[in-house]
């Protein structure tokens, strides 16, 4: 596609449920990032993929968070047993080769845990 696509755009879930957030990066982009944006907290790094491997997953807040990337393309961020503090906008970005290249961001998934 022309840009980074994220789905769903909005997700409301009950506390304790699992959610999956999807990111379709720009075709051919090797690097893929997940960030979380909370009000007043800026952009919090979660995980970085280079191809299908994740050399940096240091930002994942807990073991309830996991992510995978398949075929060097689509990535899924999974949050298990959601908590209210997980409510935020989850942003995905991709860049051509590495973090030294311009990153292109999706519109994000707004997650609300009730």
């Amino acid at each position, binding site marked *: 596609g022309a840009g*980074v696509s994220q789905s769903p755009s909005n997700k409301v879930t009950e506390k304790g449920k699992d959610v999956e957030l999807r990111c379709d990066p720009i075709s051919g982009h090797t*690097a893929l*990032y997940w*960030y979380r944006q909370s009000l*007043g*907290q*800026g*952009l919090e*790094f979660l995980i*970085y993929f*280079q191809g299908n491997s994740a*050399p*940096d997953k240091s930002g994942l807040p807990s073991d309830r968070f996991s992510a995978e990337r398949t075929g060097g393309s689509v990535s899924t961020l999974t949050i298990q047993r959601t908590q209210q503090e997980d409510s935020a906008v989850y*942003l995905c*970005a991709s*860049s051509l080769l*590495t*973090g*030294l290249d*311009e*990153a*292109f*961001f*999706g*519109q*994000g998934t707004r997650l609300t845990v009730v």
Partner: protein
Amino acid sequence: AQSVAQPEDQVNVAEGNPLTVKCTYSVSGNPYLFWYVQYPNRGLQFLLKYITGDNLVKGSYGFEAEFNKSQTSFHLKKPSALVSDSALYFCAVSRNRAGYSTLTFGKGTMLLVSP
């Protein structure tokens, strides 16, 4: 670990006046520095980056940024602000290590340009 500090939560400037949005960074080795902008209800957009070369980098929409190694700063500037520049601005740092580079963002600075 690498980090970015944006000391101002908000910057207010009148239209036509020059603007500066501050950013300082901490990283081992050579830094790669970026500015992104987020307009209301829109995704983040790339403005400019510094990799190497001239310390003054020019980017989109008339913005520029000056890399200062001794002060570890990368302030964003524009000679004459527009109301349409009002948005949330993020500074980011990266470095090349072991063939990959994580992009770390600051908390963002809200720029408000008044008519």
